[in-house]
């Protein structure tokens, strides 16, 4: 990868640029430091809803205009709301990127929040939540997170609670937008076929005059330490049972996070493959025919979050069986640690996964945006080096400190008889 250029405009806007001339395209991102983590009760889901409203247009770029212009140019554009951030991007042929740069600068300050549009979007957002509810695992995830976090904003789903989606007003959305969409709370990221000096000059010209009153105070409440194991059971019509096991772990900037990443590679694999059949959990749970599948998630977050393992049970097998096997594997890791061969494999997988994830300008820009959100713009740049520095002893050490009963939340999705559910 080519050198990263990092600068900050006088109004506080962070600018991250990386030239990449492998293809005649540019990926342009705007990342705001606000996500579901920053939402108080009564306004859950507001960050995601504001993200939807940003596609309703501005006076200069009315609704539909950018859809048309970007598609005409053969580009892609979209947005994502996560727990920690709201990110917007456009990837376009290099000679067409100006419209995206103009539009993002414009909607940072001029987005329209019309009351009728808000009502129309309310039903779309509720429909999005209802679509997610059709998946039984959504209810399990919501139950587990609600149990793991009592105080912190990671407590609720990004989509928000339906009660809040029904009660929030257009004024609430606009206030959220005005408070959080400002230069000092954002970063512009561009990766692709451009000249860095020219790109920086364009960004200064478009974004430098946007006023900023400084970064907003973000709503965030610290989660107190969990006092003992928690369990949650969710019942939904169906035939398939799931077990989710979570452990509280530190945020991505903490030195232990990368050690946990290597631990995850040993337990579930990290090659970027669809699944990892030589991983410890696959061998113990799927090969033994207790589970039909197993996956693990270690999400890089600002604040301490969860290391989650989800097991899909085969018919006739129980969550208790899967739990016993899973805890045995954790204990084995804590007692015996890992072999040098496992360490070598994890390192090679990491090198490959890093190569795959940096091959397109869109992926590179995504990770730069994520690094900004995590508070270290070089977080992804230094990812491989930090991971390769992790030792076998480090892995056993974090297994002992974090994969404990006190930090654990166990969730079970229990399928119920669909016919009983259907009865009046």
């Amino acid at each position: 990868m080519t050198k990263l250029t990092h600068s900050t405009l006088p109004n506080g806007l962070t600018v991250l640029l990386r030239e990449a001339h492998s293809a005649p395209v540019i990926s342009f991102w705007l990342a705001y430091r606000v996500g579901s983590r920053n939402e108080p009760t009564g306004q859950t889901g507001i960050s995601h809803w504001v993200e939807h409203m940003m596609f309703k247009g501005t006076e200069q770029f009315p609704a539909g205009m950018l859809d048309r212009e970007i598609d005409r140019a053969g580009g892609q554009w979209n947005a994502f709301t996560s727990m920690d951030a709201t990110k917007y991007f456009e990837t376009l042929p290099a000679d067409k990127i100006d419209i995206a740069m103009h539009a993002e600068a414009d909607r940072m300050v001029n987005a329209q929040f019309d009351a009728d549009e808000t009502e129309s979007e309310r039903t779309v957002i509720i429909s999005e939540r209802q679509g997610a509810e059709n998946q039984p695992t959504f209810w399990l995830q919501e139950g587990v997170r609600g149990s793991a976090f009592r105080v912190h904003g990671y407590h609720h789903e990004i989509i928000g609670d339906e009660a809040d989606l029904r009660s929030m007003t257009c004024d609430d959305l606009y206030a959220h937008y005005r408070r959080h969409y400002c230069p000092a709370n954002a970063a512009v990221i561009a990766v692709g076929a451009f000249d860095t000096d020219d790109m920086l000059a364009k960004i200064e010209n478009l974004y430098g005059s946007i006023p900023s009153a400084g970064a907003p105070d973000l709503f965030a409440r610290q989660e107190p330490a969990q006092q003992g194991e928690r369990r949650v059971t969710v019942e939904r019509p169906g035939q398939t049972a799931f077990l989710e096991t979570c452990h509280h772990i530190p945020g991505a900037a903490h030195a232990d996070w990368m050690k946990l990443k290597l631990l995850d590679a040993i337990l579930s694999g990290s090659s970027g493959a669809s699944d990892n059949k030589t991983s410890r959990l696959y061998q113990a749970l799927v090969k033994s025919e207790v589970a039909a599948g197993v996956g693990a998630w270690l999400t890089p977050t600002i604040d301490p979050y969860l290391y989650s393992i989800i097991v899909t049970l085969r018919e006739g097998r129980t969550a208790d069986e899967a739990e016993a096997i899973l805890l045995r594997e954790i204990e084995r890791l804590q007692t015996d640690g890992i072999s040098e061969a496992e360490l070598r494999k994890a390192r090679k997988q990491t090198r490959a996964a890093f190569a795959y994830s940096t091959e397109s300008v869109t992926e590179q820009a995504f990770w730069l945006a994520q690094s900004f959100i995590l508070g270290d713009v070089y977080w992804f740049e230094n990812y491989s080096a930090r991971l390769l520095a992790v030792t076998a002893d480090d892995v056993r050490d974090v297994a002992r400190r974090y994969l404990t009963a006190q930090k654990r939340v166990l969730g079970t999705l229990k399928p119920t008889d669909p016919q009983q559910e259907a009865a009046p």
Partner: protein
Amino acid sequence: MTGRQTSIPNSKNITRSRLDNGITILAYENPAVQSVNIIASIHAGSIYELPAQNGLASLAAGALMTGTATRDFDQIHGALEDIGADLGFRGHLHKLGFSGKSLAEDLPTLIDVANDALRYPTFPDDHVERLRGERLTWLQYSNFDTRYRASKAMREALYPDSHPYHYGAAGSENTVKRIDASELRGFHAKYFGPRDMILVIVGAVNAENAVELASDAFGDWRNDSQPAVRQVERPARNGTSQQQLVVVPGKTQSDICMGVLGPARLAEDYLPAQLANSILGEFGMMGRIGKSVREEKGLAYYAYSRLGGGHGPEPWSVSAGVNPENVDLAIASVLEEIKRLTSESVSDDDLADNQSYFTGRMPLRLESNEGIASDIHGMVSFGLGLDYLANYKETVFRIGQDDLLAAAQRYLGAHDMVIAVAGPEGDGSSA
């Protein structure tokens, strides 16, 4: 062989070799990356199985990597996972496809394992049983998925049970339960062979060396029992619409899937139909349907149309997820847009926008190994010629409004649409 690349993959910069046994190997150099991707296919999809064996081809594809004559399950996956490589086989309707990726330095291992799994699988009984259990779990889970159920109901109503498209490639609980390892071995012995196999390699490799590597691996493959490639006919439709309602208890949203028989990829009006489809339910955040159903009426989070294409008459369909109370309104809105598309010529702007969209997206698609490999595979698989991409812009801009109207009328205007709705009981739909 010919070789060396410039920009758009074409007959001059794709290195191509046709082996004596019928395999076509193609390689394209992409020095901007560190990795290599492969995409390949053989004619061993679900259209070759009997209805009572539905799911056999897919299960055979999935079981290829459970054991070979020289490697057991752990050795196969260890060989790949130790180097961070990925390889997967998947059964489709017409073909078995496989794709993989690795660091460029590990291409020999990737080719070696792919060759081993494809040609020398042993289908160990215990692993087949385990895989079958995993498939059954997935099918059971899918039975409670409204989107899956709506799509399945549409497919089953659109194609009669005598037609191979009536059946999904994954099979059903009833059929998958009965398939055993000996049937997988029999299917492999009969249908897996080199004739008309396509293998594409794209990445940070020397193209000629890559073709030579693959030729050495697959060049001695023979299978004299491999039958002729099967063609799938267009089923007769009786000219009336059908409605299907599937109750899935405990759901909060209904899924709608509406479809007609669409053109095959090689049909003369495929590209006009594809442009018409883009206007209907794709361009500018889901086209006219997205604008009507999502933006104006706020009925759905997603509402779009899709043209299947492929080797046979796959569906031209519209999908939407809506609140159960809004099912009828959403269906009516979609039908209104279809009526408009089949009765009025699209505007000059609509046509120009979508032509520009189709040609403008090529640089992004060709940015990745996977995108390049997929496009090269498609050019060969459908017999489009290796200069298809190079001539694509000219081809797309030759299409006129009359072509779009004719294609829309031919497929969408036949009044024989299937409308399937899957959702909770008493969703208010009259479908």
